[in-house]
């Protein structure tokens, strides 16, 4: 074991001290045993020591401090002398780089591409994943959630759960809240803002203190107290002109004047995007609906108790949840409660994984860039052998030669890095522009000091990566090579050529990995865009409205408003169909109510229940969204409170509830809350509510007029032409009914569709770009090596041709050079890709991570590109004029 680790040391050191180190360790172990010390500790210390000293030894070797080639001790230099030598070397490097403009430009551009991509992705990772939330000790803040133990899915919880945690002291502070949309009225057009109705400990749990005024206190909770609000910094600046005397002003929200008691500092918005915080006022905590364990309508935030950890808190929550499951097994089978760190709760699982994958991909690209530059450098150093030999002969030590080479790499890498950082600024802007809007904090991504430090670090690392191989080479060459290669054109050493072949193979293999990843991502986006979602997203405009309860108190008022608005819209020229629904697909507004239903005549027990998503709709909605009514009919205005209760269901609902029987005319009821038997009057084709990757669900629509008056509606209109053009008509009709209601979530279904695929598209686009760059770089690398190899064999080829070889023989010569590199590159790459693509599995849609078609396509593509890259050198070789080639030497 230790003997194996010894191999990490530079050979010279190992030869000299390896055995001594082994016997040292043996003796140490024996002693440890004798003194009753832990052998594991001895091992751990020895291993750590070995690893660190091996690294240090290598650094000494590389920086040439050993300088064993000189037999005299070099004079010790003063600091100024050393500085001036370094300056001199940098100047020398710049000069030498300017002499070979082609090389320098190629190297700098290659590195700039790699470094900028890596830096750009890193800055996104940095601001989305790594930046702390703007709350004190944010790592102590958790989001309590309920978790389905069989699927691992998390969701909200019931108010009773919140009371459990609060009353049992599970957290230092715990608060629950509900998201609500509110219309800020008063001056100008009404504005829709996101609000949160919070319980008293909310601000303490987050640890925010107001930048002006105060947060909500106990006095704000009684029903007779003024309806106090706290507003966000953003709202303060955009709607209240950032006035200093904001506390004490009033805001008109949902038509009610409310005192503003405080402003939160910038960034401190939780849940994200919230602009207004109001007290969550409850008639009584004893209210039966709050005691229920199945209305998962509440979200929470909490701060861990001092001294307790996530783990201990998890245990405490699980114990309480366990008690509830025992008491109410029907409702709480298979579920528990968990604390999720606030940052992970905000980020979810997909975003971090996607970002790490992208960072890995750009890392590969950067590596390819390094390999390419190393290759160029190697070719150049071979060409410069004579210069090195002369310098060596004039007394330059090996150390000086290596250092010179490294300084050159450093100059190239830092130039590339500087250019890369500038490019990265631009790339980050592009990424933000095309990124899905649901990636939290993405808008904060920018190239800041951390990112610049990162760019500098990787530039230095890169300089080492691509500098060390050629440097070591030039050193050994410089030492070994005499001046006898009279014309300095002699062939490169076998070792150098071999190294270059290996480098190109590595490059090809790395590009195969990237190509495979990109191929899979592209294939899934292609599959995704071909999926039938069950509705027609072209020519549809949606916008949501919420009717303020203060002015729309009765069900009749709400229904009159919605049905009236729909009638007016449907009659508008240019609008083909109009409808209003309580929840619109692709996250374009509203929310689905989860309910359980039982078919008429069956016993109400969990086994007979099926879970459905419940929505309310007006007549015309299905036509507006382009959904197909397969059987039965759409709602009419006669489906109201006076007529028998009806519903329209999705195919999946019908199949789950009634199998193959015709569902029309059959009845079912929401078994736990509404408890009204409803007759099925229509069946619509399945729709994928969350976009192409979603699966079909059991859906239920009931007429607005029969649904206990929901005040939220998503206006859905189908237009003949550009749907955005219908917005004016929607606004006009809305204003003619009520001038104080804001339109929110305005957008076309096409946009919503694009948004639902934006994540997949972003990954596909970025991976595709990186893979394309990688392929180009690999092709350039191959081209370089082949051209060089052929140029070196010019004379040999000339002789062969003179002796009667055919052009075909020459081409075979090129093939013999190319095929092994390409073949091994492809094979190694495919094997590596097989191992790595599993990490993208969760990002794929209906494509296996080892999709054979993609892998074959990648192999073919690389082979073709390799062929193209080798064409020019091959042609050049076959056109060698024997006379010139032989005479030239």
């Amino acid at each position, binding site marked *: 074991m230790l003997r194996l680790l010894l191999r990490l040391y530079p050979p010279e050191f190992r030869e000299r001290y390896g*055995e001594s180190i082994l016997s*040292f360790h043996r003796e140490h172990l024996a002693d440890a045993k004798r003194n009753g010390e832990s052998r594991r500790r001895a091992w751990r210390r*020895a291993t750590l*020591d070995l690893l660190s*000293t091996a690294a240090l*030894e290598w650094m000494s070797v590389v920086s040439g401090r050993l300088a064993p080639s000189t037999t005299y001790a070099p004079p010790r230099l003063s600091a100024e002398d050393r500085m001036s030598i370094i300056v001199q070397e940098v100047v020398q490097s710049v000069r030498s780089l300017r002499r070979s403009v082609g090389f320098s430009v190629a190297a700098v551009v290659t590195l700039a591409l790699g470094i900028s991509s890596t830096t750009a992705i890193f800055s996104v990772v940095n601001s989305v994943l790594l930046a702390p939330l703007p709350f004190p000790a944010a790592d102590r803040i958790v989001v309590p959630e309920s978790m389905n133990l069989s699927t691992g899915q998390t969701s909200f919880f019931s108010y009773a759960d919140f009371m459990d945690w609060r009353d049992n002291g599970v957290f230092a502070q715990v608060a629950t809240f509900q998201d609500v949309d509110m219309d800020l009225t008063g001056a100008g057009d009404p504005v829709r803002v996101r609000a949160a109705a919070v319980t008293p400990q909310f601000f303490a749990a987050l640890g925010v203190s107001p930048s002006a005024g105060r947060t909500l206190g106990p006095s704000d909770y009684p029903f007779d107290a003024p309806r106090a609000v706290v507003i966000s910094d953003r709202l303060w600046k955009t709607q209240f002109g950032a006035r200093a005397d904001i506390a004490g002003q009033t805001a008109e929200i949902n038509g009610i004047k409310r005192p503003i008691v405080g402003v939160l500092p910038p960034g401190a918005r939780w849940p994200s995007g919230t602009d207004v915080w109001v007290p969550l006022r409850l008639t009584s905590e004893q209210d039966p609906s709050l005691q229920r364990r199945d209305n998962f309508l509440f979200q929470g935030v909490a701060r861990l108790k001092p001294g307790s950890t996530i783990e201990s808190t998890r245990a405490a929550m699980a114990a309480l949840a366990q008690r509830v499951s025992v008491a109410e097994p029907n409702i709480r089978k298979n579920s528990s409660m968990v604390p999720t760190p606030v940052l992970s709760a905000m980020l979810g699982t997909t975003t971090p994984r996607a970002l790490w994958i992208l960072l890995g991909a750009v890392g590969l690209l950067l590596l390819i860039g390094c390999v390419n530059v190393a290759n160029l450098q190697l070719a150049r150093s071979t060409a410069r052998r004579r210069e090195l030999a002369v310098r060596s002969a004039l007394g330059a030590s090996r150390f000086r030669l290596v250092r010179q080479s490294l300084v050159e790499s450093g100059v190239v890498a830092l130039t590339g890095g500087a250019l890369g950082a500038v490019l990265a600024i631009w790339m980050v802007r592009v990424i933000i522009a095309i990124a899905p809007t649901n990636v939290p904090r993405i808008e904060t991504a920018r190239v800041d000091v951390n990112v610049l430090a990162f760019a500098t670090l990787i530039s230095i690392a890169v300089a080492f990566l691509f500098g060390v191989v050629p440097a070591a080479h030039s050193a050994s060459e410089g030492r070994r090579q005499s001046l006898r290669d009279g014309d300095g054109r002699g062939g490169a050493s076998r070792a150098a050529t071999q190294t270059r072949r290996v480098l190109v193979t590595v490059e090809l293999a790395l590009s195969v990995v990237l190509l495979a990843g990109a191929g899979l991502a592209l294939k899934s986006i292609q599959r995704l865009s071909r999926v039938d979602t069950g509705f027609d997203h072209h020519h549809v405009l949606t916008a949501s409205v919420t009717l303020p309860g203060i002015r729309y108190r009765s069900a009749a008022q709400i229904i009159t408003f919605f049905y009236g608005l729909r009638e007016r819209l449907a009659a508008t020229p240019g609008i083909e169909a109009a409808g209003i629904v309580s929840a619109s697909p692709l996250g374009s507004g509203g929310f689905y109510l989860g309910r359980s239903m039982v078919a008429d005549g069956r016993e109400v027990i969990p086994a007979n229940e099926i879970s459905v998503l419940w929505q309310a709709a007006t007549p015309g909605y299905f036509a507006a969204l382009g959904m197909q009514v397969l059987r039965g009919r759409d709602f009419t205005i006669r489906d109201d409170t006076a007529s028998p209760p009806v519903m329209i269901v999705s195919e999946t609902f019908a199949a789950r509830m009634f199998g193959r029987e015709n569902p029309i005319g059959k009845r079912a009821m929401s078994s736990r809350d509404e408890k009204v038997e409803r007759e099925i009057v229509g069946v619509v084709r399945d729709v994928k509510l969350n976009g192409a990757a979603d699966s079909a669900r059991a859906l239920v629509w009931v007429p607005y007029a029969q649904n206990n008056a929901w005040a939220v509606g998503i206006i859905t209109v189908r237009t003949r032409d550009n749907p955005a053009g219908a917005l004016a008509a929607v606004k006009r009709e809305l204003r003619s009914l009520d001038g104080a209601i804001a339109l929110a979530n305005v957008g076309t279904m096409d946009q919503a569709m694009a948004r639902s695929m934006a994540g997949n598209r972003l990954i596909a686009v970025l991976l595709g770009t990186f893979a394309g760059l990688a392929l180009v770089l690999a092709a350039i690398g191959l081209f370089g090596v082949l051209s060089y190899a052929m140029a070196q064999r010019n004379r040999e080829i000339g002789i062969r041709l003179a002796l009667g070889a055919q052009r075909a023989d020459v081409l075979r010569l090129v093939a013999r050079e190319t095929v092994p590199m390409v073949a091994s590159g492809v094979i190694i790459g495919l094997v590596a890709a097989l191992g790595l693509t599993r990490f993208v599995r969760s990002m794929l849609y209906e494509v296996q991570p080892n999709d054979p078609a993609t892998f074959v396509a990648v192999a073919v593509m690389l082979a073709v590109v390799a062929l193209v890259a080798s064409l020019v050198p091959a042609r050049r070789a076959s056109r060698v004029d024997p006379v010139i080639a032989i005479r030239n030497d």
Partner: protein
Amino acid sequence: MTPRSKSQGHGPAPETLLPLKPVESLMMTMLAAGERHGYGIRQDILEHTGGKIELEAGTLYRHVRQLESTGLIEPSSQRRDADDDERRIYYRLTPFGRRVLAAEMLRLRELVRLAESRRIITPARV
């Protein structure tokens, strides 16, 4: 194999190698008492520092390499007991090394005297 031990009488002036690294002067001080192998040096240091300084093999031999290459210590060919591990190499201080160590100690003594005169520590009663 004769290691390259630089200049044993006509090398650079001892002062040019000062100051020594604390660990290195510690190692040399141990060797001043007689030849030792690597593990012996470690044990010696462990004992004299009350268990505070515990060198591991890699670190120790890096310093050995450094001291050897500057000619301060050298391997000795003698002192192999019959039962001794034959791979063991004993090291000893070179005369040059002894001079450098002495110079280092004089430097330290000056430093200690300075500290005493500035009342950082009370003068030792010898």
